């Protein structure tokens, strides 16, 4: 990819740092999902870490795109944030209901 060549050194460093941070968050979230003991902490870890990780990756990608693509990526991030939060709440409530029934 030749796109990276057009960026200044600082931009490249910043974007790489952001992308790597995002990856770290994703890895942390995935490890947490495998290792954490119960559903609530797993949900907590996955939704929080992945939302932040995705935001960081999008921020890193923003150096490579024009303003319109950046806007679209931001909107996608907001949608993922909202749907992640809602599904986390729903799954947690489902777990709670099952726990109360048992």
């Amino acid at each position, binding site marked *: 990819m030749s796109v990276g060549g057009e960026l200044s050194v600082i931009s490249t460093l910043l974007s790489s740092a952001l992308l790597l941070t995002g990856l770290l968050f994703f890895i942390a979230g995935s490890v947490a999902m495998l290792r954490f003991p119960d559903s609530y902490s797993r949900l907590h870890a996955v939704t929080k870490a992945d939302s932040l990780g995705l935001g960081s990756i999008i921020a890193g990608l923003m150096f490579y795109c024009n303003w319109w693509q950046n806007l679209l990526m931001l909107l996608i991030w907001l949608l993922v944030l909202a749907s992640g939060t*809602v599904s986390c709440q*729903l799954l947690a*409530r489902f777990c709670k209901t099952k726990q109360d029934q048992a």
Partner: protein
Amino acid sequence: MSLLLFDVLLCGLLLALALASVLSRQLSHAVILYIAFGLLMALTWARLAAPDLALAEAAIGAGLTGALCFTALARQGKLAASPTLSWQQRCWPALFVLVTLFGLLLLVLQLPAKPGPLPALVMQQLAASGVSHPVTAVLLNFRSWDTLLELLVLLLALLGTLQVAPAPVYQSSWVLSRSWSQLLAPLIIVLAGYLLWAGAHQPGGAFQAGALLAAGAVVLKLNHQLNWLAWRNIWVRFFAIAGLTVFVAAVLTAWLLSGALAEPVWLRWPPELAKYIILLIEIFATLAIAITLTLLVVAEQPATPLSLARQEDDEAADG
């Protein structure tokens, strides 16, 4: 090089997810893995430069099929544990799959490495098709016969499903999921309208738009919204059939129009009217596909007095 790594990872993940889904012991796990498989399959189609298929796969393969499997599982209740089969019982399906796999591999190996003459022919005739996106031109002009039959297949599937639709199960829904589905509804309608309109010159079209609308409608229906969207509603029946009827009517009109000019040809649009005919067919096909796919997932027998009474009891208990 970097994309080669991505492709290898994608292929590996697809195979792993498919195997995990088939081999998983719990049906709910199998369904979740299958949804993940559908999402990766959509990514694969996008990587193979087939965005039309990627959109359809994401909406149907990952979204609607997942919802269909989950509603089926929810109705199974405690029976959902998969039965244990003896090895003789497993042998025949395995044999069938192996034979199919062998035949498919033989076919793939016989595929010519070079593209045939058809893509060039499509691009050459594109100007006369009424649209500028080659996939839409093939689906709704050059090979509209296939699309007509697809609509017929969908309608037949719906009519069959309605005969065996289960009795309604009343389950209360959470306020959060209800309001979230209501919040998403306008977004989905706008997106579906965009996909439908964009189909003329870029990836998109009736099937993708209809599948997206259906996905939104299924989520709303599962939250006990859109109560009018049921087979007992005469307008729902009308629009479910309208996709096919409008198509056939357009075919007959075009046939009559061309009959006056030269030798009549079945399923050929006059070039100057093609754009409008395709748009008309696509609008009604979108609605028909949306209604059909929605009802395929959430169709229920008409409410009986008993189920209605139970529903009222539950609502009284909630309030």
